[in-house]
């Protein structure tokens, strides 16, 4: 929100003025209203392993995060480029593998990756799209550049909080909202369903049947699944509502079986089909993978996309963009040490106290070390793990992440934020990004961990025309 010299950056002029005119009591009142909105709406998530309350609400900070439309234009171009490259990369590693042959990405890193699905090699996915929905985590370190922290191209979640946050701002922050020209995000469900319809298998008529496949109401993101299905006007199905016959997928309805053409699946690869992957999965649909490889149903995202959002692959993203697009990457990568490489490992081991170390296959902020905020014994503990299997870790500097004024217990104070915009890719490579995304905020002072499972909150993200 503030520039290096302490002045208010231009996009935040309105917010700064507004903040000067409200007192903490008024803010607290609005915060409570927002909480009530989430509670009443059942806008909740579950934290695994938490036996206390099984449904929690995500803290919502009412002070919006603001980007100028000029900043957004640059960012969205970068996102589009990155997602385009990732799609080509996936098509390549499951196809000709030219990037491996060229020696750009080490072969063992790809083929040895548990998220790489050998079953997908040589499979033609409908319209050649692998990641229909991508959530790219962006951070800012300075006023000029956007850095990618992480690509999420399996089943990225959080978009319902983007839309929910906007709804709250409409209701509670009308005064501030009116003072800005905020670009809309509410068309996201329309864009999503249009994207999904566009990638239906070629045999379907003009009116493909799209459904959202959820693991069910005990999943942490169940609210989002039901919310999106509702806003898209498509059926929310569970594995037990579907069956496969002659390599076609059907849903069980009150009028008998009905064919399903596109599944927006929010179930991980391992669980989608007990016959093809984990046999103990109760969530999936037996035979679904066969129907998929036969080309009779589109899965969004494709099976095996996890091979692209690995934190080890992440380090090669600049090369991947150059290799497939012959362009300079617009978005930067955060400098990263690959612990699999001896030189990097020894640097990391020497500087553990100042680095962030992450598991290559981890997500959700689990299993990571934030050096500057860890005790000596935590660091030593981690050092042992790192030495035992260096190839499963990467390390990054602790970044001076940008902060945004947030309303916390002590009043209005700066908190670290990141941003997850959602990038949609449909048939013919058509990309759609609604202006904004989910801003996640670390609600604890100094904390850099924004994950909701670790006590992070969210903010509405406004892209404004100045």
């Amino acid at each position, binding site marked *: 929100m503030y520039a290096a010299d302490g002045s208010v950056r231009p996009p935040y002029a309105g917010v700064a003025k507004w903040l000067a005119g409200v007192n903490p009591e008024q803010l607290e009142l609005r915060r409570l209203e927002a909480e009530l909105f989430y*509670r*009443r709406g059942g806008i909740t998530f579950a934290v695994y392993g938490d036996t206390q309350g099984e449904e929690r609400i995500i803290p919502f900070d009412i002070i919006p995060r603001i980007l100028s439309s000029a900043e957004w234009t640059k960012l969205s171009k970068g996102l589009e480029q990155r997602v385009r490259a990732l799609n080509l990369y996936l098509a390549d590693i499951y196809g000709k593998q030219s990037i491996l042959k060229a020696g750009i990405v080490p072969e063992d890193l790809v083929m040895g990756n548990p998220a790489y699905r050998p079953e997908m090699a040589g499979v033609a996915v409908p319209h050649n799209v692998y990641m229909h929905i991508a959530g790219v985590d962006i951070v800012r370190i300075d006023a000029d550049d956007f850095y990618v922290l992480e690509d999420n191209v399996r089943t990225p979640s959080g978009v319902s909080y983007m839309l929910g946050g906007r709804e709250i701002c409409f209701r509670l922050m009308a005064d501030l909202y009116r003072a800005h020209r905020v670009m809309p995000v509410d068309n996201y469900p329309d864009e999503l369903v249009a994207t999904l319809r566009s990638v239906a298998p070629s045999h379907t008529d003009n009116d493909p049947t799209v459904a959202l496949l959820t693991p069910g109401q005990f999943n942490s993101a169940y609210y989002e699944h*039901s919310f999106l*299905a*509702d806003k898209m006007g498509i059926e929310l199905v569970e594995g037990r509502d579907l069956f496969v016959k002659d390599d076609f997928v059907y849903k*069980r*309805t*009150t009028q008998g079986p009905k064919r399903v053409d596109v599944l927006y699946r929010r179930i991980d690869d391992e669980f989608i089909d007990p016959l093809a992957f984990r046999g103990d999965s109760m969530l999936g649909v037996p035979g679904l993978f066969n129907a998929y490889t036969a080309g009779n149903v589109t899965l969004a995202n494709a099976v095996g996309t996890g091979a692209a959002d690995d934190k080890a692959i992440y380090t090669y993203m600049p090369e991947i963009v150059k290799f497939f697009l012959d362009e300079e990457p617009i978005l930067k990568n955060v400098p990263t040490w690959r612990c699999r490489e001896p030189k990097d490992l020894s640097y990391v081991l020497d500087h553990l106290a100042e680095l962030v170390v992450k598991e290559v296959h981890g997500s959700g902020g689990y299993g990571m070390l934030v050096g500057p905020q860890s005790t000596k014994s935590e660091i030593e503990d981690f050092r042992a793990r790192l030495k035992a299997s260096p190839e499963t870790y990467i390390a990054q500097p602790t970044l001076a992440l940008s902060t945004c004024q947030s309303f916390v217990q002590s009043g209005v104070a700066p908190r670290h934020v990141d941003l997850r915009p959602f990038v949609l890719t449909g048939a013919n490579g058509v990309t759609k990004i609604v202006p904004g995304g989910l801003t996640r905020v670390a609600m604890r002072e100094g904390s850099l961990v924004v994950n909701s499972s670790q006590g992070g909150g969210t903010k509405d993200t406004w892209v404004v025309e100045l």
Partner: protein
Amino acid sequence: MLSRTADNLFWLSRYVERADYLARILETTSRLSVLPAAYTGDTNEWTSALATAGCLNAFLAIYDKPTAETVTEFLAFSDQNPSSIRRCLETARFNARAVRTALTQEMWETINGALLDLQKMDERQFTTGNISRFTEWAKDVSLRIYGSGYRTMLRNDAYWFSRLGFFIERADNTARILDVKYHILLPESSSVGGGLDYSQWAAILRSVNALTAYRWVCRESLRPWLIADLLILNEELPRSLAACYKNIADCPDSIGSAYGTHGKAQRQARTVLTALENSLIDQVFHAGLHEFLTNFIADNNRLGAAIVEQYL
């Protein structure tokens, strides 16, 4: 629509309706139990309440003796009773969350809001003396869920499956309360007369929300055969078996028309409705009130089975 969705909607409605019925049983029983014994006889009203709620055996598996305290706890809050008001509303909300997309925002917020209220509620504040505060709340919740659906749902299959749940449960409840109390409605018991029967009769009417209706329809003091006539055959009374079946028959008919096919469910509903329409209360008593009600409950269950077979 998904068969599972239809199933969830159906049961969501049944549980909401049942919560309402349980609330009214509790209220009626509390009222009876404070009358002097001379007016209620030596029967234990609380045993009767459990029988009417269909959970006497479940109760006796846990408690020795039905008392005001134990029955109130059991019917209102008990976790061990799948048909306590609390559990009914929890199950309804569980079903609602599973079919979130088939509900309107208003319906969902009503159900979800009720659950939040319930979670915040301190059950210890309720005693047998003030339980009406809880039952009033439960009735209000049920009414709001029913009403928000009526007001906001599209008139498509989801709506009709949901209504079907309300009406089938309602018919079942009315039939059950009549069957538990049928002995005091038999003509010979009227010779006993006096305050005792009067309170019991009034209690039956109260538990289906029909005491005032009785006065408007029958315009005389309480007579058992008139009560039976009102609760079984009078189509004007919303909780009578005949009125419920008029509504019930409409649901499968509407679904059938939308789908363009009619089957067993439609035939079964129409058969029961026609039988009710062509009955006279004298014949019902003549053939045996208890037998009549037992048959009705079985027929009502058969309709449920036909729906499952045809759609779910």
